[in-house]
């Protein structure tokens, strides 16, 4: 099993913490998901209610590792500054690096991403870059010091699943030793199972669980699907073929007609 900067994540699920109907439902979803990582963010602390402090207590009680993000950052400077602030607050070198390049698709600015990854890696961060399935960009990110890659399945929050199976399969084949995480775009557990069947090491999702009618049940459904996909990937799947091949032996078939 490939590890993530020296940390094994056997459950294969990183779960976001946004958009849940209530803190109690968030906690229930995490329990049933078996997720070992929670993605979190940093935002301005509001005046009197101190929502950030309450949220931190909730996350601490989950007993999972946190992966802070730089969501919403559109420049290298913003992302690097946010990463430094996150490292201090969450006391972790892990950073889910997002440098957004397009407001409609939330597609990563891969040029800024590589630059920010290089800066942060040199400063001791362990970078989880939100990227595309582009092989050349992947190479540049590895050159910049990333030891994990997180290609999107589809645009964030879209629920469209794996939009470029060919590209994702090629990425897996080109980098057999690099931990790969499908980050963003998943909507259904079957899509997570597919990602794992393709040989990916984990999936990162949020909206598919949080926006479901029953988030906790959906969290468990994703956990089961990921487990199924992991088992299938390790079971050496058969090669598809264009022509039919009878599975029932023909030898000994009666002459009845």
């Amino acid at each position, binding site marked *: 099993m490939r590890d993530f900067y020296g940390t094994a994540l056997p459950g294969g699920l990183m779960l*976001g913490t946004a958009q849940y109907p209530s803190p109690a439902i968030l906690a229930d979803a995490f329990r049933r998901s078996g997720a070992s990582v929670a993605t979190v963010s940093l935002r301005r602390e509001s005046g009197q209610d101190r929502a*950030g402090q309450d*949220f931190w207590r909730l996350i601490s009680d989950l007993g999972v590792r946190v992966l802070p993000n730089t969501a919403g950052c559109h420049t290298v400077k913003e992302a690097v500054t946010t990463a430094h*602030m996150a490292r201090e*607050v969450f006391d972790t070198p892990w950073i889910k690096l997002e440098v957004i390049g397009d407001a409609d698709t939330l597609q990563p600015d891969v040029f800024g991403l590589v630059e920010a990854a290089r800066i942060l890696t040199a400063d001791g961060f362990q970078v989880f870059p939100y990227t595309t399935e582009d092989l050349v960009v992947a190479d540049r990110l590895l050159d910049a010091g990333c030891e994990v890659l997180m290609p999107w399945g589809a645009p964030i929050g879209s629920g469209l699943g794996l939009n470029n199976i060919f590209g994702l399969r090629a990425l897996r084949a080109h980098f057999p030793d690099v931990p790969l995480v499908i980050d963003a775009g998943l909507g259904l557990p079957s899509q997570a199972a597919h990602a794992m069947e393709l040989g990916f090491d984990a999936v990162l999702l949020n909206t598919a669980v949080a926006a479901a009618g029953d988030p906790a049940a959906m969290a468990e459904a994703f956990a089961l699907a990921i487990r199924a996909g992991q088992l299938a990937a390790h079971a050496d799947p058969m090669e598809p073929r264009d022509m039919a091949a009878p599975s029932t032996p023909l030898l000994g078939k009666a002459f009845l007609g």
Partner: protein
Amino acid sequence: MRLQLNGAPIAAQAATLAELLDAYGFANAKVATAVNGKFVPATDRADYALSNGDQVEILAPMQGG
């Protein structure tokens, strides 16, 4: 001294960033700070002198995907 605190204009008496956090009840809170777009580590707040017009950001843990 006039400052921007998390995007809102304020009038502050604090001479340093640490004093400002204390005045607003953030002294022991789990927050990170930046001034004028630059990260200011917690260990530097007591020595960080504020100037008129500074833009101070106080960020806290929040939900994220």
